[in-house]
């Protein structure tokens, strides 16, 4: 099984991507979305959903399994190749072939290729990370010639029980400074609090952004909210949300779900023969940063997102004015603003994000931020960022289709400390 080293473009200066315009997204497929897997139904495992998504993606691209020669997956959809299975397993296993977590709570490329009967695969890689990094890895692998027609499944799971519980009676070492106050990433609220004090704003001013995202997300047929909680989400709802930590409301946190998507990535040449209009990769760039101390600060979030933006512009050769659609990760809603300001989309500078949210960010307006609804609008699928970018550029986003010109789209995720940006275009040039 392949594990790429040094594929990431995370050293400055990154330079124009050598495969700019030579790799394309040509298909996408989604499963339905559940709140969680019940641990019993084998039709609702991450494996089952990945296969549904893959068949939908192949049909979308107009290819057959025999056309596929590469599979790259992120088995559990998490950073550092993390998987959910380890957290809940061991479990009483089912009969073979379900006597492993593979296909249940994570999905390796090997399992995936075997189950789909992919006869012509020459490249398998199960070391993808979160979605943006996974797609970036796939673009690089196709560009490098490791495969030509690559399926990229992205399973993202949620199991029974409570999420991200860290059990124990003691917190030792650095954890003593963070764990007693809850799950580590609730420290994102600390950064947001700093932001509000620095720029003279407040948490309630996030409301228009999250409300608009939910509106956008309800327009997806497979969105968690469209399927399970279709009632409108209002500004009253948002401002009355309970605080998880200072600066972080329950409605800033995305809803873990059980779902899978799959993408088809191929060369620009092969893309010409496929069903959909190609969406060309102009660039992928990555970054992983470490806080100076035990707690990430606002200065660091801004510095890291600045670096990520600079790399994206350097790698693609574009400028802020070239970007029609911008989709920054909102897994915590309070993070999207650091990316928005760093990229300077629509001229938004540091400290101006909340003013921007108060303006027209609707789908038919001039500034359709996160047209796909993000995680706030669709649940923690994450795939809305990629699929929406693709569909907007192809003109097939249906009720979500924006009113502005849609020729260049940028999306970035997940957090400023560990992110990849992807630049897509309707033109390879």
């Amino acid at each position, binding site marked *: 099984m392949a594990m790429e080293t040094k594929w990431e473009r995370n050293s400055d200066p990154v330079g124009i991507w050598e495969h700019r315009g030579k790799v394309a997204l040509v298909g996408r497929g989604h499963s339905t979305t559940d709140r969680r897997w019940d641990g019993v139904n084998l039709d609702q495992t991450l494996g089952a959903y990945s296969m549904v998504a893959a068949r939908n993606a192949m049909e979308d691209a107009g290819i057959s399994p025999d056309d596929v020669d590469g599979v790259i997956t992120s088995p559990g959809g998490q950073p550092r190749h993390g998987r959910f299975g380890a957290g809940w397993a061991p479990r009483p296993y089912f009969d073979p072939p379900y006597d492993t977590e593979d296909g249940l709570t994570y999905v390796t490329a090997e399992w995936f290729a075997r189950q789909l009967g992919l006869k012509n695969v020459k490249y398998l890689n199960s070391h993808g990370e979160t979605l943006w990094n996974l797609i970036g890895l796939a673009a690089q692998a196709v560009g490098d010639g490791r495969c030509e027609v690559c399926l990229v499944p992205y399973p993202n799971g949620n199991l029974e029980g409570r999420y991200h519980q860290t059990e124990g009676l003691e917190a030792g070492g650095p954890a003593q400074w963070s764990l007693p106050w809850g799950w580590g990433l609730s420290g994102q609220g600390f950064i947001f609090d700093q932001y509000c004090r620095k720029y003279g704003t407040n948490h309630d001013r996030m409301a228009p952004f999250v409300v608009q995202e939910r509106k956008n997300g309800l327009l997806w047929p497979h969105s968690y909210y469209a399927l399970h*909680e279709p*009632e409108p989400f209002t500004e*009253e*709802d948002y401002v009355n*949300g*309970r605080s998880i930590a200072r600066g972080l409301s*329950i409605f800033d946190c995305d809803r873990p779900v059980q779902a899978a998507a799959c993408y088809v990535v191929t060369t620009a040449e092969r893309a010409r023969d496929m069903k959909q209009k190609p969406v060309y990769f102009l660039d992928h760039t990555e970054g992983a940063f470490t806080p100076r101390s035990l707690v990430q600060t606002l200065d660091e979030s801004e510095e890291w997102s600045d670096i990520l933006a600079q790399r994206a512009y350097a790698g693609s050769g574009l400028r802020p004015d070239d970007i029609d659609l911008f989709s920054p990760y909102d897994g915590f809603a309070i993070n999207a603003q650091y990316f928005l300001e760093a990229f300077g989309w629509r001229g938004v500078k540091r400290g101006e994000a909340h003013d921007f949210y108060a303006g027209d960010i609707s789908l038919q307006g001039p500034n359709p931020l996160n047209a796909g609804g993000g995680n706030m609008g669709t649940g923690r699928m994450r795939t809305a960022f990629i699929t929406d970018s693709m569909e907007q550029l192809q003109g097939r986003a249906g009720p979500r289709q924006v009113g502005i010109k849609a020729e260049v789209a940028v999306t970035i995720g997940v957090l400023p400390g560990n992110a990849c940006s992807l630049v897509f275009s309707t033109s390879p040039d």
Partner: protein
Amino acid sequence: MLGEHQDSSTGAVVKILLSFDIDGTLELGDPPGGVTIEMVRRAHERGYLVGSCSDKPLSSQRAIWKEIDIEPVFVASKHQLGDVRARVEADAYYHMGDRDTDFQVAQEHDFGFWWAHEAIAEPWLSLGTEG
């Protein structure tokens, strides 16, 4: 009168407020809990002041009450239990839920409390009838 019921031992008319958590407590929650809609309806019909205090958005809570055709006296976010006490006049206040958060907010705002698994026995029906 709405919200009043007669204490069977003393004959006094008392208003008892019941605050329901939803997810993990009510059968319509996610995950579903053991307190059924029938139990809620029974409490409502017997004059208890019923409403919800949940982490669900207020709009979602109102939609649930509308779905079961009961007009709640209040809907609130979980940290707003104190506001419920301030807004709604009652002789006794009870909250029920499945999480530590439910217990904590109940304690903080001087509500009586039942865990979700205790609530399925409808303990409110015997309030005032003991001893």
